[in-house]
């Protein structure tokens, strides 16, 4: 799977624009996004996430968190500015290179996005099947990620038989199965109770320790405050705070 990265030759943008010794896995340069309706969701946002970082993205509803994530997975294109993910300018990608970019990003959502008629293992394997991975590669890869998220015993169960935490762990396993450079989680604990939320956070922290960059958008103040990780706060389309070990201030509810 990782062989595909050889196709992404390092572009001038990643080398030139940041003189920092650490290469950013995600970089936004003066990014503005105005929707066709005229609403400006993001205004001149600058953000650098070095490889291996764990970053919380916080802010009230409508602050632009979802738009930022959509730009990263190239669901939307920036109106102006540059979005670089894994060394590639997303706006310059040709249509057929977009799927390759998405394989380098693992996405996790609040609503899990699992297929109800497929078992846990099948849901995870699906991500590899639809990218043309041969069967002999799929099985060990699925077993590996299921053991990482601790769902080996539930591999044959259908989503309807699982708890919320298990559903989200299935989604995380699926996000991991391509061995992505970065995991982008949009409110992954939004539908879960506090105890299960902690489980999910612990899992994401472990994945981060294994070397994968994690960007997590959340409303969960307890988690953000307790973990003392880097916090990027958005409000009305602007980055209003970007600090390491920041607490989740009341004003960002």
């Amino acid at each position, binding site marked *: 799977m990782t062989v595909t990265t050889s196709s992404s030759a390092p572009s001038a943008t990643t080398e030139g624009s940041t003189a920092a010794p650490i290469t950013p896995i995600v970089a936004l340069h003066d990014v503005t996004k105005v929707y066709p309706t005229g609403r400006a969701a993001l205004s001149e946002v600058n953000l650098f996430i070095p490889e291996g970082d764990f970053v919380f993205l916080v802010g009230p509803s409508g602050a632009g968190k979802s738009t930022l994530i959509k730009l990263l997975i190239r669901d939307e294109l920036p109106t102006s500015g540059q979005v670089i993910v894994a060394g590639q300018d997303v706006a310059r990608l040709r249509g057929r290179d977009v799927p390759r970019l*998405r394989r380098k990003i693992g996405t996790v959502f609040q609503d899990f*996005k699992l297929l109800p008629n497929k078992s846990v293992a099948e849901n995870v394997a699906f991500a590899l099947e639809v990218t043309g991975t041969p069967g002999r590669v799929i099985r060990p890869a699925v077993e590996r990620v299921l053991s990482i998220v601790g769902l080996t015993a539930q591999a044959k169960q259908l989503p309807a038989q699982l708890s919320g935490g298990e559903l989200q762990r299935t989604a995380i396993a699926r996000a991991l199965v391509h061995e992505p450079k970065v995991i982008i989680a949009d409110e992954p604990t939004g539908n879960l109770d506090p105890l299960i939320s902690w489980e999910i956070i612990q899992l994401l922290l472990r994945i981060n320790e294994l070397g994968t960059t994690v960007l997590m958008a959340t409303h969960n103040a307890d988690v953000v405050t307790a973990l003392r990780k880097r916090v990027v706060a958005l409000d009305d389309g602007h980055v209003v705070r970007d600090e390491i070990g920041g607490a989740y201030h009341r004003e960002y509810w």
Partner: protein
Amino acid sequence: MIRFLLFSVKRAAQGFWRNIVMSLAATATMVLMLLLLAGLLIVVTGLNAGLDYFESKVEVTAFVRDGASAERITEVMDRARAMPEVADVTFVSKDEAVARFRAYNEARGQTDLTDVLPWNPLPASIEVDLADPLVYAQVAKALEDERDVVEEVIENQSVVNALLTVTNTMRLAGTVVLGLVALTVFFIVINTIRLAVVARAREIEIMRLVGASDAFIRWPFVFEGVFVGLLGALVTLALLALAYQPLSQVMFALFQVLPLRFGEFVVRDVTLVVMGAGIALGGLGSYVSVRSYLGR
């Protein structure tokens, strides 16, 4: 490539079975639409065959002067035979003309008066059967120009024109109705398949999120659409085959005057149209329906 095809076919079969209600609904719609199309095609083909038959009855009749030489008559007939769109040229002698006249009157129950006359008043004639009534005027003119042989050409142009107007209008009407129904079938089938695809928007969304290329998303759906089309076409043909015996008897009763082997052409054409339309509509419907989710 082979893995991709296997994957697509496998996914298509899975898609069909795991959404069996939607698949059967789409197939049923497909069957009804194809039956409509096939039924109309049969009727229009029958109509056209009937119109062809009436048109083939158009002939130019030229009365031959008494005393025209046999060689000249043969010459004129050969020339007529050589003209384009002329099916057949026959000579009706004076005796044959009288015999026909008598038979005609007898059939109508009228007294035969030809015996009363001391001579045969009816002229011999050259009858030219036309393959296409459009050349009527041209053939009539050519015969008229042979003044030494031809005394008079029966003026039938207005009748021929009227016939052509009627047959052409009916042909056009048949084609227009067939076209409208084909268009309706096209949109209904495409829409039905679109519904089946929309019901699985989530699946497509997930495939895009995990980095499936457009081809991997599109082709399983296209194959599934082709499968629905093929199944619909086979069911339609099976239903038509069951209806064939009683239907062909009705057709025979209606069109028994037809000289051509009407049945065989219809069977071949309908099979081709039903199979082609089913497969093409199924595949195309899926293709355009999935397309709106791709390329982003």
